[in-house]
């Protein structure tokens, strides 16, 4: 395992892409998950980009969901603002969590891919509860709340 990981990380970007696409074709989720877990932010972006283009049935969704747990707003906005994968494969609950997290990390909500199409009544309730919670704490609302409310029905 360590030898395989070393050969991946020591490879050029082109070699990494070949390995990643091979793993996607083989549906080797476990090893790709391992590579992802020990990658830095730029390396993670490469994997997510590959999945966005190569995982046509959402079979590697566990990796995207794991990536969404990041504390890095750079990585989070990369996924939410530039990748189609969440819009295509996230369940309603998973998509809603992504939107709420966008508020928490204070990034744009209107730029989230698919937000207009995937807006839903549960998400409306969650946002309203969030507004109430912020008001109880006398805290201002992130810009994303206004953006969400301006999306219309």
């Amino acid at each position, binding site marked *: 395992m360590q030898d395989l990981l070393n050969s991946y990380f020591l490879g050029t970007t082109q070699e990494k892409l070949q390995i990643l696409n091979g793993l996607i074709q083989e549906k080797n989720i476990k090893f790709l*998950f391992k590579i992802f*877990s020990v990658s830095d932010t730029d390396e993670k972006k490469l994997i997510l980009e590959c999945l966005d283009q190569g995982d046509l049935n959402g079979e590697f969704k566990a990796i995207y969901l*794991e990536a969404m747990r990041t504390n890095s707003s750079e990585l989070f906005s990369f996924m939410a603002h530039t990748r189609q994968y969440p819009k295509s494969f996230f369940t309603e609950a998973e998509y809603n969590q992504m939107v709420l997290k966008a508020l*928490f990390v204070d990034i744009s909500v209107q730029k989230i891919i698919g937000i207009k199409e995937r807006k839903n009544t549960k998400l409306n309730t969650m946002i309203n509860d969030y507004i109430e*919670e912020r008001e109880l704490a006398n805290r201002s609302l992130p810009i994303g709340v206004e953006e969400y409310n301006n999306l219309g029905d």
Partner: protein
Amino acid sequence: MKMFDPHIHMTSRTTDDYQAMANAGVNAVIEPAFWMGQPRTNAGTYEDYFMSIVEWERFRAKQFGIHHFATIALNPKEANNLYLADDVIKMMPRFLVKESVVAVGEIGLDDQSDLEEKYFAIQCEMAKEYNLPILVHTPHRDKKQGTQRCLDIVKESKINPEMVLIDHNNEQTIKGVRDRGHWAGHSIYPFTKMDSERMCAIVKEFGSEKIIINSAADWGVSDPLMVPKTVKVMLNEGVSEGTVSEIVWDNPYNFFNQSGKLEKLLINDRPSINQSQLFEGNSVLRGQDPIIQE
């Protein structure tokens, strides 16, 4: 007034924090197992982490006259890592029986995923098997619904409601928690979650029964002195000393003593300090004269 901070991640804090807490009257802390800010890459790192919070961190605390206890769990965030979760669950029993482990926790929900619910339920069963109370983390996002789901999972587990501490409450959640007969924890943060003034208002409305406060201080912007600071606010706002003492000492003591491991004699007084002691050859000192109490 002696105080108990029953939720603080001291592994993320410095010895200055221990000293400041001791000076402010904190006699005892509980360190719940949690995540480390970035995801763990394998279950083996959990083993080292669990060991450190039941051994090294306990030693560090004692060097400053503070009793240290721990809770052990697979945290909700990492319950989503299907390549890690089962191995952590398998290693938990040998830590749950350690003398300083007083609960299963933090368990609960974060993203409110199916995997989180699965491992939450599994760990409720473990708590029953090992006769330990549970410390339940409620989600920061979608808090109201997420807390309700936590309450439902706890109910489904048929664990005794008295053995359940639901944490990170706010005005939106406390009533539901109390209606189920659970203990209600409140994490007092400098900027988010709950602040001292709001906590004081909650105490004035709900009283002190089964109310617990903590700092939940960790590696983020947080304050390990939030328990003593909140005590000061409550006293200034006219809450009686007896009520405050119940909240910051008797309640956490009584809840976690359901583990049978918090003997009153053990923590009524501070542990005596002997900074000449070493742990695996390591000292907390860096050239200072050691403090040695009789």
